[in-house]
């Protein structure tokens, strides 16, 4: 069983957490996420032009660059994480240019070597899959695809073709960390996606509180929290891991204890 399959096979929904690589003591922050009960880790690759991200993650990227973070550093962070945590799925999330700069094959092979389970690339839709998808498949790295409120029934089969790991439902048309979607619209979307795929469905964008997370966990297989965690890094600096562990624990308790309702 893959790490993804195991993470989503538990009796409760999975907590998927996002932080930006190189923003603060990333190794300690990742350990805090695991200690707090995160089931899947998304590690953001900073990019100079993060056009799908809101102010919180934009600022995290700038802090990471100020610390001199390189692609080699990010891969080293991933490798270190895998050495410490054998079972937690690790996803690299970011933009096309840093992922393809040295060639898609190079990137996919490095990810596989570092123990990365999956990739989320924000700006490579299935129409441009040949820029990255074949290399990931050849290296055995899952490509996690995004579905959004604008992904209609005609597009969905193509979005799912070649998708692996889990399906990430971006619950609002917008950038990260700002608006949150109405619960009813999330329930409707997850139900619709379930008729088309057997992949676990994780829901994200704008999820900030344990209460919101618990509501989503009642209908989805996973809940993604990012900007709220990244803001803790901004707020607490070197002391961030302790705060992140506490907050993660509250999210995990809410998500893991949420009672599933029939979707």
């Amino acid at each position, binding site marked *: 069983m893959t790490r993804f399959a195991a993470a989503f096979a538990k009796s409760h929904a999975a907590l998927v957490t996002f932080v930006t690589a190189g923003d603060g003591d990333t190794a300690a922050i990742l350990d805090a996420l695991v200690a707090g009960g995160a089931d899947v880790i998304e590690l953001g690759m900073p990019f*100079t*032009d993060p*056009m799908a991200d809101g102010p919180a993650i934009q600022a995290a990227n700038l802090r990471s660059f100020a610390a001199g973070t390189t692609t080699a550093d990010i891969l080293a962070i991933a490798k270190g994480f895998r050495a410490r945590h054998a079972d937690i799925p690790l996803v690299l999330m970011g933009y096309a*240019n*840093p992922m393809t*700069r040295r060639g898609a094959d190079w990137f996919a092979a490095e990810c596989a070597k570092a123990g990365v389970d999956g990739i989320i690339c924000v700006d490579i839709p299935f129409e*441009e899959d040949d*820029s990255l998808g074949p290399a990931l498949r050849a290296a055995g790295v899952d490509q996690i695809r995004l579905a959004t409120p*604008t992904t209609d029934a005609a597009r969905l089969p193509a979005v799912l073709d070649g998708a692996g790991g889990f399906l990430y439902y971006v619950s609002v048309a917008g950038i990260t960390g700002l608006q949150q979607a109405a619960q009813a619209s999330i329930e409707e979307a997850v139900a619709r996606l379930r008729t088309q795929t057997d992949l676990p469905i994780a829901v994200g964008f704008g999820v900030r509180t344990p209460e919101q997370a618990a509501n989503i966990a009642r209908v989805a297989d996973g809940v993604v929290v990012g900007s709220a965690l990244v803001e803790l890094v901004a707020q607490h600096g070197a002391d961030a891991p302790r705060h992140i562990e506490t907050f993660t624990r509250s999210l995990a308790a809410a998500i893991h204890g949420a009672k599933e309702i029939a979707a």
Partner: protein
Amino acid sequence: MSTHPNSFRSQPDERGHFGIFGGRFVAETLLPLVLDLEREYRAAQKDNAFAAEFDDLLTHYVGRPSPLYYAERLTEELRKDAPDGKGAQIWFKRDELNHTGAHKINNCIGQILLARRMGKTRIIAETGAGQHGVATATVCARFGLPCVIYMGARDMERQQPNVFRMKLLGAEVIGVESGARTLKDAMNEALRDWVANVHDTFYIIGTAAGPHPYPELVRDFQSVIGKEARAQLLERTGRLPDLLVAAIGGGSNAIGLFHPFLDDPSVRMLGVEAAGHGLDKEHAASLAGGAPGILHGNRTYLLQDEDGQIDEAHSISAGLDYPGIGPEHAWLRDIGRVEYTSATDKEALDAFQLLCRTEGIIPALEPSHAIAAVTQVAPEMDRDAIIIVNLCGRGDKDIFTVAEALGTQI
């Protein structure tokens, strides 16, 4: 050089690719919108009423056709230092005489007609020098649509007259504080607005870049420049030009001039990038100093580091201050159909002043780069050779920048 296609004018392919360049590299949320736009554009291309309305507005609102002008005094000036029998004739395609003072309006007319066809009720745009912002604000006022313009805060400082123009025209101008606070950052912010307002908003991209079909449709709307120039020169001289020259930021004025001539093998073409402080220092010449990569919806040449992080561009001209280039130029360069060179800030400033004094025309800093290149190549060409330069914008907006660069208080 590899084998050439039968026509250089049949790009892009159905996926929006110009060779390996172009494409649709946008987030899933936006992809259905760019597909909608492509569908609507294909329908508009087959609709005679669309073409008629576009042409009518270009004639009576923009003031087209723009003149093709033989710059006799500049030609003579450059012949002074040329070898015997050398010193080509220099002609200007005078798109600086358009309503709003630049070529940008051609594209804005086309795109706002598309926005209306699609039932969109809100317009957004990015701007660098402010010429595209002014042109967008202008067409929004003309058609009564609300308009939000994203502009780098640094560009707002150096292009204050255009900021005020946009506000007079009823646009909301939002200063962008991220990154180097220039055109690239304005484009990021416009994309963020678009993804959050997908249902009612049309994004009028100002240059021949971005996700397919933007590079194609911007080129098509700007191709009026080259079509007119071709017909005008044939009528006046009975022949085609030997060389076309245009400045390149994203490259919309250049592709607009070049495209109708691409299948005329006798016509050479020269695109001029901004070399800023010099190609070994800070500059904005993505073909000369960049490598292929993916940004803002397309694959093209980008100024970037070994990790794929985008470098900050620099040019004295806010309109050229962008670390990428339209994908069709990337393709035309790689197949060798168009040559590309660059001009520094200083060379552009010198050319700016030369044109003021020899022709009584104050050019924008963007085409001043093209004129700088012409001062290099014209003296090497035969006297009966003809160069057409795209004078794509007027310099009123730049007088403060030029004064500062020359150390003059206004």
